[in-house]
């Protein structure tokens, strides 16, 4: 068993949280309240490419927990956990089983769609109102746009990481 796995997970979680700070300076193409680029998903995509499923889930779950504690907003945890776990699972399945049919960009778009839909589902469950699902078209459009952007960055970053052999030295 790789002894440095835990350290890699901690570092990737930190990286995901720090990278999401870049959303403060990168303009969002869709001016809708609450819509974010989701740059942290780049780290999820990288983890899916180089680590196994258990490590990916550990990264997603612990990252959501850390962000909830740091922002003193534990009540967003059901939203972030549901969206994060389901989208990471969908992306992992597409990457490992259907890589022939989906590029990293496509996987990222699917991940964003699943993430947004899952969060809307949680909001609907909590509120007990299905009318909230009429908001889906706006979320789907934003998911496609942000998913394409993060997927493009993720694809290029994975290429750079493979070129430098970063994970080969450690894993």
């Amino acid at each position: 068993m790789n002894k440095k796995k835990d350290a890699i997970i901690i570092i990737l979680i930190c990286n995901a949280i720090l990278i999401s700070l870049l959303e403060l300076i990168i303009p969002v193409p869709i001016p809708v309240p609450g819509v974010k680029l989701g740059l942290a998903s780049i780290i999820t995509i990288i983890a899916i490419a180089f680590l196994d499923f258990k490590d990916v889930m550990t990264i997603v779950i612990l990252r959501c927990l850390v962000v909830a504690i740091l922002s003193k907003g534990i009540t967003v945890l059901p939203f972030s956990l549901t969206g994060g776990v389901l989208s990471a699972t969908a992306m992992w399945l597409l990457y490992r089983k259907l890589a022939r049919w989906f590029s990293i960009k496509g996987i990222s778009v699917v991940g964003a769609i699943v993430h947004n839909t899952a969060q809307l589902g949680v909001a609907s469950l909590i509120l007990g109102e299905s009318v909230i699902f009429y908001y889906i078209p706006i979320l789907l459009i934003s998911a496609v746009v942000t998913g394409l952007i993060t997927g493009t960055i993720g694809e290029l970053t994975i290429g750079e990481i493979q070129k430098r052999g970063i994970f080969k030295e450690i894993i």
Partner: protein
Amino acid sequence: MYEKPAVSENRYVKLDAGIKTVLTILLAVAVGFCDNRLELVYFSIYLAVITVLLGSDLRFILKNLTAYGIFILFPYLCGLLLSMLLQQFLPGPTYAYHFAATIIRLIKIFFIWYICSLYFFTTPLQVIMEIFYIILFPLSYLGLPTAKYLSMVMLVMNQLTSSAGQFKQDIMEQVRIIIKNDSLGFTEKLKALSNILAVFIANSLQHSDEIQEQVDLTRASDYHYKLRISPNEILAVLSFVILSIFIA
């Protein structure tokens, strides 16, 4: 000039963690039992009083409102407007709008949201981790190393504290320059961003040895909790009992 004491110095913040956690859970559950507007008013007064006693301020309330608005309120209002629009143009059964019930539900959800945020705002991190350890401890019987995962959470937070400053100075500055560079096309900007991220990730992974050492040093005895009862705890429990009488 009067200076508000820091949150950590407030005596109500130093309430026993276990009792505070139980009261928070009971308060969140009690919201569900508020059936009419008067009970919601009692609850609002109670929350306002404990907000003042715990030393929280208006900024905290506004921050909570923003997060609540983004996740619940805004999607609901957008969904409502879009459904009304669609029903003007498409035939079919109309959606039954239960506005009064929904508004009460929205208020109750906000109260639960607020109670949980107040708890985390006024409880030190180490105490939160100890409570998490107690709550998640039964999972260790299923083979889940809860102490290790909680120490990983703490290590992440320590790492963030030490590296956030450098990140903002170096990486964010580089990204800012790229974004503002009008001579670069969209694809070139994305490529430049990817290069920066790849280098950043490569450099960060060089510290994996020292971080792994810290993970290996984790012991379950790092998380210890002892129940402590003082007049403040008794007062807090009594106040909840009085509130319960009003809303029962």
